[in-house]
């Protein structure tokens, strides 16, 4: 982040975030809210209409690579609202799609239909990328922010960018509590 932009961020940011509109949740909070947390690799996508033909859902099959909380079958399915089907494109602002081969740490809750949903939409979806230094890092697109309150006090919010190793340690510690 450039110095100039950092200064702007300090002045104007608050801890309320829009991304569709979310309040940033810590790894520990996401862990507590989720029944399952796993490193997973996307296999394929399939979009379908709901029974009323009003909502498009996309079912993404994942291969569980390493469980961090709970237990899942090797192949499991995550359902998200939105997708492309029959010439229509339904989207939830700020929510990303998965492409086959994407690696991500997923914070999950069971849905009523036997599939899973991602806790907090994009917040529970930490994409895994390899940094230029060769370190596997994760982020969920919900960035760190600093709040300047009315008294002039600066408060840091812990951002989501971290190493995969740190994320895993924090998840396992939170899950054990």
């Amino acid at each position: 982040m450039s110095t100039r932009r950092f200064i702007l961020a300090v002045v104007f940011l608050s801890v309320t975030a829009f991304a569709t509109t979310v309040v940033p949740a810590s790894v520990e909070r996401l862990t507590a809210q989720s029944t399952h947390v796993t490193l997973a690799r996307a296999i394929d996508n399939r979009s379908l209409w709901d029974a009323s033909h009003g909502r498009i859902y996309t079912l993404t099959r994942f291969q569980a690579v390493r469980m961090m909380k709970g237990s899942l079958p090797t192949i499991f399915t995550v359902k998200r609202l939105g997708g492309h089907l029959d010439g229509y494109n339904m989207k939830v602002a700020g929510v990303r799609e998965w492409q086959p081969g994407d690696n991500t740490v997923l914070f999950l809750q069971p849905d009523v239909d036997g599939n899973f949903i991602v806790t907090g939409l994009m917040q529970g979806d930490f994409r895994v990328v390899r940094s230029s230094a060769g370190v596997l890092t994760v982020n969920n697109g919900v960035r760190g922010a600093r709040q300047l309150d009315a008294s002039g006090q600066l408060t840091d919010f812990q951002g989501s960018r971290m190493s995969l190793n740190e994320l895993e340690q924090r998840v396992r510690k939170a899950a054990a509590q």
Partner: protein
Amino acid sequence: MKRAATHGRLISIALSICAIALGLSLPAFPYLPMYTRSTSGSAQADHWDLNAFPLTYSVNPSLGSNFTGGGDPIQIVGASFNTWTSAPNTAVAISRAPDTTVHSAAFDGVNLICFICQDKSSFGGTTDTLAVTITTTSDAAGQDTKHGTGSTAAGQILDADIEFNPGVQWSTGLTVTGNQQHLQTVAAHEIGHFFGLDHSAVVRAVMFPFAPDVSTTLSYDDVAGISLLYPKGMPDVATGSIAGTVTLQGGAAVFGAHVFADSISTNLPFGSNIRKSAIGTMSRPDGTYNIDGVPADSYTVTAEPLDDPVTDSDISGYASAFGKGSVQINFGTHWH
């Protein structure tokens, strides 16, 4: 003024400002709308076709005890729509249709505003998701619009629904306390999505992904976005365009650089009701960019990687709409 800020490895960028002139015609991809990838593979800016069918919204008026502060949530949503429709240089109108009992977003011809929305999957099972906007666009012309007509083009918005999380404590007043969220602030942002705008990387914009607790007025960046999607025939304020190409040293085009124009004066060409901010855009796959909707003023132009606090993740459809996996961030920030 010319400054350069580089970090680490070779990160040289050549940014050429090709033109700054008033009255230039609109480019294909102004500002930061959401995008739909058409069946022919091109990226089309999401927008309502205002000639296709009447643009309305319907409110499900059911409310819970989680709304406090003395204001009327329905009037607040109406005021938030007015914030956008009354923006300078903007010609978009929306009216309130009869109320509805629908309580779930769907592509059904009803643009729903819902305060008691119970679909777990919409909010990801938490109260940390305050609200969501779900839009449906067509991938091509001729799709059923649910209004008895066919869609006119790829990217045409056919339906948009805003769901407010019923588990959130909403403030309908002027301020927030404790764990409250400010309804009008959130509504203003969501309505930007309703009209087709994606997140902006300009810090002071309503469409910036992170916002103050209370912020209900548009910024210059928001005005540029909405007025370019829905331009007024006779603009209130003359604006122009800054165009150029972002390349790495050696000439390789940079895709997805955030390029913004920042005024260096204290002029207020949009008046005092619009918060002065930079006006930004993203570079296309060939490195070209157009910063449109720029009022007459003196500017610095900056190209920067989208690497925090806003990232590729916050602009969910931009890279994929151009058939790319992500935007480029392998360069440093440069000012011109």
